[in-house]
């Protein structure tokens, strides 16, 4: 858009804005019909920012507008413009501007360090903020012209601000050029700090470098140890290296970045990670792109120390073909006084701790069954639609051939019959085709997270999901069981029996669903091994273990982080070897960091909003089994 056109649009907006500034009119314009609240925009913003790319950012409502590089803090309400839609747009622009700070290097490590050391005084940061705004607007104009047009239209608070910003743009014109960095903004600070500061643009927030620094330092440590651990855990046996190299202690592992695919000028952290062993090289596909992206947002490339060589001597067990990997089959002890014992995988030593977990199977507590009635009433329309959908699944039919009677003649059977007659044999009576409903031979085990973190809405949503699922499964006739799981430490693992495969969906089951309450921790490995072994005993063509969860595996005794993930992954692999399919439905927004690794790329679903869980769970079940 030309400067002239922009100015015209701007004038219109400014007229409305100046009306807004009038105290008398303000009362009218700030009515709820005009303003846009955070809750109305947050879901959109979350998806929108995720779409823009880069590190996963939390969207949080706050009194101040800023980013600490892991969250975008936005105001609780926008009521600057006289239309709710325009204020909604302002939310989008604010989020986009803050995202731009994390994407175009405003907060890369070197800049933050420099700002902390030399420029964090109260009079310097506002100058830096405005210079960066000029640079980021230019970056956005190159990459997102649509957004840049809206920045122009909705950015200025009044005519005077527009004039002031024009003056600053003149001083900071070098920042508009492609290839400039936040370093250039810092260099300009001394030249412009005597000028009067223009007011912040409508979509611009504050800058709190100390908060950014604190969050960044923690993240850098976290990312570094995560990357190091991932390099260590790469299974070299799956790479294209010569096996003879594995034992050569002089050879080392090293992560390399294929620079040709990394276009930093356009700020697209897209990297192929390569593992080098001697002169050999292999590319790792899908090597935690979000982790690499996060590191690339903090640094100009992956720091050399992250790619430090690691002596194979440290982890020869990993690589040796004779390494102890434990018995493939899980070993559950016979039931001894109601306690089952299960082993646990320790990835650090690449071995099982045999009989490490003691698991008790207990009946779930009974609750007030009125919860079920209320849920059915609340989701009346959904239940009706579910019934139609699932009955539709049942009506899907299959052509049966060589039937004694049916809808149509079976041509193949007739030809064969004539041939037999011609051959002197008796004519067959099985000459017809007919459609018959496909028989579903599915057994499904639902494993419900009852950890303490599910307290509140999550617990309620889980229970509602189970009620709707039971309604759907009763229509389908699939065999199903429901168990909760929780516990405290390896000696206190518990699963709670809500419904077994042979039990009908009766009053007791409804009361047990109603009685589901948050308990303690999430030690998933033992629960998967136990419920997997039960599922294994059922006679069904397709066996499915579906976990409803709200977070990563965690217990109070060190069963957390990578340890918990690795054990859970191992447990899932064990049950998958017995032809059980595992799937996870979670509301944990960070689940993409670990669920693909545990369950496989296609075997999980993240549900954004807890209140959508009941609706989505049934939808996912239908998709999974049809």
């Amino acid at each position: 858009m030309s400067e002239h056109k922009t100015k015209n649009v701007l004038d219109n907006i400014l007229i409305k804005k100046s009306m807004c500034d009038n105290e008398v009119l303000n009362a009218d314009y700030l009515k709820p019909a005009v303003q846009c609240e955070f809750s109305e925009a947050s879901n959109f913003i979350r998806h929108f920012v995720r779409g823009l790319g880069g590190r996963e950012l939390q969207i949080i409502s706050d009194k101040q507008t800023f980013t600490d590089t892991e969250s975008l803090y936005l105001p609780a309400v926008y009521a600057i413009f006289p239309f709710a839609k325009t204020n909604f747009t302002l939310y989008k622009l604010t989020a986009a501007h803050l995202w731009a700070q994390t994407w175009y290097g405003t907060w890369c490590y070197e800049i933050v360090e420099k700002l902390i050391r030399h420029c964090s005084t109260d009079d310097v940061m506002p100058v830096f903020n405005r210079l960066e705004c000029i640079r980021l607007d230019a970056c956005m104009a190159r990459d997102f012209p649509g957004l840049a047009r809206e920045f122009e239209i909705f950015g200025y608070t009044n005519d005077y601000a527009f004039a002031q910003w024009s003056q600053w743009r003149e001083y900071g014109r070098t920042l508009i050029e492609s290839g400039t960095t936040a370093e250039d903004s810092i260099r300009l600070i001394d030249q412009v700090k005597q000028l009067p500061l223009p007011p912040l643009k409508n979509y611009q927030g504050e800058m709190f470098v100390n908060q950014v620094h604190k969050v960044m330092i923690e993240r850098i440590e976290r990312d570094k140890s995560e990357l190091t651990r991932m390099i260590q855990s790469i299974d070299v046996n799956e790479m294209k290296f010569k096996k003879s190299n594995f034992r050569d202690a002089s050879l080392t592992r090293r992560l390399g970045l294929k620079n040709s695919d990394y276009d930093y000028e356009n700020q697209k952290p897209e990297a192929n990670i390569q593992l080098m062993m001697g002169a050999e090289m292999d590319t790792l596909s899908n090597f935690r792109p979000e982790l690499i992206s996060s590191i690339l947002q903090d640094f100009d490339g992956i720091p050399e120390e992250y790619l430090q060589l690691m002596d194979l001597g440290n982890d020869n067990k990993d690589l040796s073909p004779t390494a102890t990997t434990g018995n493939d089959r899980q070993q559950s002890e016979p039931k001894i006084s109601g306690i089952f014992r299960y082993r646990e995988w320790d990835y650090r030593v690449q071995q099982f701790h045999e009989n490490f977990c003691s698991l008790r199977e207990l009946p779930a507590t009974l609750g007030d069954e009125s919860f079920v009635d209320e849920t059915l009433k609340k989701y009346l329309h959904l239940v009706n639609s579910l019934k139609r959908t699932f009955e539709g699944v049942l009506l899907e039919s299959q052509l049966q051939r060589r039937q004694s009677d049916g809808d149509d003649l079976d041509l193949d059977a007739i030809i064969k019959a004539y041939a037999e007659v011609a051959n002197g044999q008796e004519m067959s009576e099985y000459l017809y085709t007919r459609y018959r409903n496909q028989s579903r031979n599915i057994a499904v085990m639902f494993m419900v997270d009852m950890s303490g973190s599910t307290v509140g809405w999550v617990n309620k949503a889980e229970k509602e999901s189970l009620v709707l699922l039971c309604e759907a499964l009763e229509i389908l006739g699939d065999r199903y069981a429901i168990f909760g799981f929780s516990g405290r430490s390896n000696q206190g693992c518990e699963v709670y029996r809500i419904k077994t495969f042979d039990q009908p969906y009766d009053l007791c089951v409804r009361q047990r669903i109603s009685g589901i309450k948050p308990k303690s921790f999430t030690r998933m490995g033992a629960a998967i091994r136990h419920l997997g072994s039960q599922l294994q005993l059922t006679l069904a063509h397709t066996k499915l273990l579906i976990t409803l969860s709200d977070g990563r595996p965690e217990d109070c005794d060190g069963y957390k982080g990578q340890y918990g993930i690795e054990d859970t992954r191992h447990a899932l692999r064990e049950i998958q070897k017995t032809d059980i399919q595992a799937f996870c439905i979670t509301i944990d927004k960070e689940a993409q960091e670990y669920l693909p690794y545990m369950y496989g790329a296609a075997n999980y679903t993240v549900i954004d909003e807890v209140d959508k869980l009941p609706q989505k769970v049934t939808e996912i079940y239908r998709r999974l089994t049809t």
Partner: protein
Amino acid sequence: MPKQPVNSSKRVLSNKPYYEPIGDEVAVFAAAYRNHLPVLLKGPTGCGKTRFVEYMAWHLKRSVITVACHDDLTTSDLVGRYLVKGGETLWVDGPLTSAVRNGSICYLDEIVEARRDTSVVIHPLCDDRRLLPIEKRGELLTAPPEFCLVISYNPGYQSILKDLKQSTRQRFVALEFNYPSASHEQRIIEKETSSDSNIASRLVKLGSMTRNLKGNGLDEGASTRLLVNAAKLISGGISPVTATDTAIAQALTDDVDMLEVIQELCRSVF
């Protein structure tokens, strides 16, 4: 009415199909072909699997027979069946038999969509026997060296009933396809649609933005095919915002909230 053999298209490609190699897939396929090994192509929809098969058919100078598999596809649909014509029974080859007889490349697209028992018929063709038993005729066809079987599927399908059985998949040389890198994808759009580099690069950016949403409201991000479609509309005079809305946003989802997000992303990029 007796069922006709499945629709298939035998194509002899005289013009070189445009295909942008991503890695060593051309060399691997050619080596598999020389060694009479069947090939499995894995990858999301619209990433270039079918185009790759056409390119390889042209490269190897073979005709290609493509079968789009569906959930009612039977063994007879692939192998062939008897039809009654003028009081006589007449045998009609199915596309697989036809490909074996003619030494063509037979491409079974989205094999997991076919009935599970159907895939078993290809087993003897996929090991060192390279045989196709035609039970109804009591005939045993030996595949000529020129014959090659290629199957494809999308592992991202979240249905446990639509997975490829181990007994089938372990007979193939598997090539994994994914969306091409940004520079590759841009080149593909430019060559396929004669779009300028600015439009192509913006579409690539939009594509990667929608892929960021996979698993978070979208089942799949925009495929290269969708980006090419949008570029074609833009080249045809449709405004970029309308073109991306119709060719990408509306094609990706019906969810109102997600649609709004994708439409905003489209508007942001143009």
